[in-house]
């Protein structure tokens, strides 16, 4: 049974939120549940307590709330989309969306996406170009990188958008 540090499990960056923010409160599902052993013990104990104390209605709400506290700490404090961090996250997303909209406005301009990394920028570009007609002529677009805050440039009817390394 391993008990890892909670810090490594936190979805602390905007990129982690884009990729895994909806899949779990931490990155435990992606990391194959490093704390599965003791979590299973907690679950079995909670089931037994719930059945044994089912007539004591104050015990069960307390059990639910106490067990949820570690997760709430992430949701409301530690994650990059926690209330205090959400403004900064939204600002980074908006900045990237503005850059795509400026260089490849949809549906006005015909733009052919010739390369996109299957990473954090993939869904943002999907929003920027929701349809990709096969017959699209016009300029070409390539998007590379694995982080937000994209900058685009145009060279000879070819748009290149890159984020950090």
């Amino acid at each position, binding site marked *: 049974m391993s008990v890892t540090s909670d810090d490594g*499990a936190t979805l602390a960056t*905007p990129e982690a*939120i*884009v*990729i*895994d*923010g*909806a*899949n*779990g*409160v*931490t990155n*435990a*599902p*992606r*990391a194959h*549940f490093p704390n*599965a052993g003791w*979590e*299973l013990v*907690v*679950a*079995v104990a*909670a*089931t037994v307590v*719930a*059945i044994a104390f*089912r007539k004591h*209605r104050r015990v*069960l*709400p307390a*059990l*639910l*709330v106490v*067990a*949820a506290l*570690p*997760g*709430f700490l*992430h*949701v*409301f404090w530690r994650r990059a*989309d926690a209330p205090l961090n*959400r*403004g900064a*996250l*939204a600002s980074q*997303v*908006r900045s990237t*969306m503005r850059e795509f909209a400026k260089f490849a406005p*949809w*549906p006005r301009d015909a733009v052919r996406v010739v390369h996109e990394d299957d990473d954090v920028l993939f*869904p943002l570009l*999907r*929003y920027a170009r*929701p*349809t990709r*007609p*096969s*017959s699209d002529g016009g300029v070409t677009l390539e998007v590379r990188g694995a982080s937000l805050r994209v900058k685009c440039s145009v060279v000879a009817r070819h748009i290149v958008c890159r984020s950090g390394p």
Partner: protein
Amino acid sequence: MIALLGLVLLHLCGSALRVISTRISFRQALERPSSVWFAIVAAYCVSLGPWGALLAAVLVVISRVGLSPLPNPLPLRRGELIGFAALSALVLARPWVPTQWDEFVWIAKARLETLGFGGGVRAALDASMHVLPAGYPPLWPASMGWLSLHHDDVEADVLSGSLLMLICVATLIEVWREEHVSLVGLAVLFASPLIWVHLRSTYVDLPVGLLSAALAVCLVRGHERPPFVAVLLGVVLAAFKDEGLLHVFAATGAALLMHGVRKWRLSLPAVAAVTATLIWRGLLRSHEVVGFDHSVGSPAWAEAPRLAELLTLHLFDLHSWGVFWALTVAAMVVAGNSPMARGLRLTLLGLFAVTFFALLAGPERVRVFAENGTLLNRLLLQLWPTAALLVFSALLSPRSLDAPAHQAAPASR
């Protein structure tokens, strides 16, 4: 804020359609959040073109076969109003910007409605447009586009998604309210941290779960004749996401087991959902659009043990769920004699069965997603509302465990 105007318009149109189709008063229709679904289903039928007329005809026929009225809503207590207002504030008080992978994808599809009414359906049926993911039912993003009144604005679309989420919550409250509600009990149900992540997003999984639970409640309480709104919920579930059809089957199966297979009207929501699915699948086939995510093949039985292990690991992920699913197990064991708790237990067992089978019989990439940790928690979100009502009914309700659910006086549909 244009989405709020869109919601008001849809609610007015839906209320008018409800008056026509179920003969209740306009005021009664206005008082019911679920009236919005009348407008959304009507708009969906129109967006499907001639085949939508077939779906509409099926719904008209079903509305005439003597469905039961839905009781008038009980007057809202002040605490309940404050509770829903607080929930709404928490859901809406955030920057209206997508931040998670599928949010961008859903809102990208909502954006297609800016090309004109039905733009989402037309693009989804045009393989050369390369809309991703291909073949998915189009109603969830289209509804967001309709609430935004076809305005090309990401904030309007995100707000639309959040308002639809709240309509789903309100619909569940509307059909559930005949049970004795303890606010403390309801509040602790939300002690599942992942729920708060999704309440503040525009993913469709939680809305599917909320409407699935609402349908289950309608059918468990329906005895012989479900209300017409249950039929519409069947259509909405099937048109929101392919898994929605499985939810309709699970709820229908549980209701027939509880009330007897001779109560054939209980299967009318499933008839409507199957019709909606067949029409959409037929349109995809006739337009040569391949939906590879949700095709069904031979079950991969050899992978069943690993999938069961993964599902268990997700269920007991303390950070995402606390001990909610552990208490669900306890609630299944001690469901007691309350008809509602027994009905919800049957429905939940059915939901787990169909979800597990869908994982086994789905394409290989679905099981890869499960292994990568990007799928199972979202499927569990679809089951959470039914499980939450079961936990409430069996463990947290102020009413005695063994008391049968009382019958409220029927008054409207």
